[in-house]
């Protein structure tokens, strides 16, 4: 399993548009992708679950990846966060 943490920089948090892109990105990997914030966790391949976490600017989220391409997924998602959130 791969895990990393990220603090959201985008002033609007994870709102609809970036969430949509993030779900697409997560879906492009085979590994399962889970986001955890304040005890709540969400499947990152499901838009609804992800939006349900209500992530705001300054929140630190934990992302867990597990599966065959978990390393690539961790790398790809880290980059995605850095670029978009």
């Amino acid at each position: 399993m791969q895990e990393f943490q990220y603090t959201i920089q985008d002033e609007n948090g994870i709102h609809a548009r970036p969430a949509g892109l993030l779900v697409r990105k997560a879906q492009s990997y085979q590994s399962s992708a889970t986001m955890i914030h304040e005890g709540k966790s969400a499947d990152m391949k499901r838009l609804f679950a992800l939006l349900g976490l209500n992530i705001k600017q300054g929140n630190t989220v934990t992302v867990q990846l597990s599966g065959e391409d978990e390393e690539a997924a961790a790398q790809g998602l880290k980059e995605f966060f850095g670029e978009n959130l």
Partner: protein
Amino acid sequence: MKDKAFGVLQRIGHSFMLPISILPVAGLLLGIGSSFTNQTTLETYHLLGFMGPGTVIYSILTVMAQCGDVIFTNLPLIFAVGVGIGMAKKEKSVAALASMVAYFIMNSAISGMISIHGGAKAFLNGATCSLLGMTTFQMGALGGIIVGLGVAALHNRFYKIEFPAAFSFFQGTRFVPIISTVVFAFVGILMFYIWQPIQVGINDLGGLVSKSGVIGTFFFGLIKRLLIPFGLHHVFYLPFWQTAIGGTMQVAGKEIVGAQNIFFAQLADPSTMHFSTLATRFFTGEFILYIFGFPGAALAMYRCARPEKKKEVYGLLLSASLTAILTGITEPIEFSFIFVAPALYAINTVLAGLAYAVAQLLNIAVGLTFSGGFIDLFLFGILQGNSKTSWLLILPVGIVYFAVYYFTFSFFIKKWNLKTPGRETDDEETKLYTRADYEKKRSASKTGKKEESERLSASIVKGLGGKANISDVDCCATRLRITVADSDLVNDSILKSTGAAGVVHRGTGVQVVYGPKVTVIKSNLDDYLAKPAEEAEVPEAPEPAASEAETAEKQNKDEPKASSPQKSVVYAPLNGRVMELSEIGDGVFSEEMLGKGFAVDPSEGKVVAPFDCTVETVFDTKHAINLKSGNVELMIHIGLDTVRLDGNGFDIRVQEGDKLKKGDLIGYFDMEAIQKEGYRLVTPVIIANTDEWKKIELLKKGSVTAGEKILRLE
């Protein structure tokens, strides 16, 4: 018919680009070589001892000058082959060979006719010249272009021809050089008779432009700018550069035809005191425009952009300006305003015409090989010295032009509220947003570069209406030029999401403006198109948006993820007008990146439950609500980009966990206040778990009241 003509002209214009692209190199060689072998220059700078005749440097420079000169001398042949390649649809290499053969044949035929009729002496002075050892007519690049076009026409017609078995060796592509030889022997004979009156006519037209003097120069500049958006400027200016329309002059004892040829002949001639504006009047104005005028326009657009957009447009305008200043490629900057603000385009053409005229009036004479950027100014202005070119005058005129562009653009942008970059309404603004996103993503995934270029190609193909819709792909310095079967299938917004600055339509001809990187895009696109269909399909492309709809559909067809036996119906949550998501045109919701669904343009600021459901999430910013009913996950997103309002204008009356009946009140929103802040009210209603449904069908469009059936899910 008109559309078809445009398509052909577009291809011809493109086919000039390959031969023209040689000119900067040839110009560099000739420019540097002849500048520093010029006796006067060497004497002036006391360099005779260091690099005068007899030194190694002098020898190298002489060879350089000769190598550059040979390109200009044989430009007709280069054009013949280049145009042949550009216009041939397939088997381009064969067309190249056939063009060369045809060019030799045509000139030999003319040469034969001339000697029959008494040799060169029997003809007008300057009518004949010696080319590749043949005494032939002075036809300039046009002669080459005639050959290229003719051979390509023969080639496209015959390259697949079939013969009886006995002659089968000569069928197909092998037949093309054969038929070209036969045809162009006759063309040569014909040319002998046609060309004499044409020479008279061209000389007269050239005389007319010459006689109309500065006015003629003004119209040359104006028309050239006018043609830029249509990509037809190459067809227009080339005769001036290369034929007698652009003037005829005695240089170093030889009769030289065409403005560019005259300039370079003078450049190679050490006895030249000052270059003639007769030739350079078709060039010099460009330096004033490209190095000074357009950056002034860019500054005006930057200053007029909305404060929050300035950062975004800064990059665009700065790089576009630098491209224009350095290389003289101006499409990036011009396309940033001519489509969105035709008024500026009109002003631009007049100012351009004036720039050419002013340069002529002030006797500024700087030639160019390719375009009026700093590189050419340096080589053919600064390096040649002020005494020969008066290039220093470009500076004050340029500064005036910078100011004129800056102030006229600023004035009209504000007066008419023109939508130059950074002043768009929200609609377009979000397009910029998604494109920026796309660029970011692209740079993010360095690992998958090849994959990335394939995805880009894939979405360009989608934007062009699919592989089957594309009949021909070409490119020039900045545009992808495509001929499509059905122009209705072309989707501009998809094309723009791939990084295009603009899209031009003319019937079945489509031009997509990418800037100088277009050659790479075209090569990738060619590779992509050449692949078999299955392979070419990029299976899991999270980007670009455009392919999403199909991918989603495919997923649904092939592998419905979860079993969802129930059917479900979504009712309208608002009064207003229901439309397809694609009609939003925002580049995100419209591309179904968040899922399928519909959008409502509300007529009342009240939202109700679209079915019996549980409230999953109410965003802190109140602009979006997630609802769950059975296995339907639905999001109502009130307005576009309204996340930025931070809750202002929204009065949501439900909380997470609330159970609602269809039609129960969810909340209110202040339509006036939200619009006043500059946001669109159109409200996407999205099925967030679209991929768990086989079929999502829109039942009703147009005006609805809350509670009407809108969407059926299966």
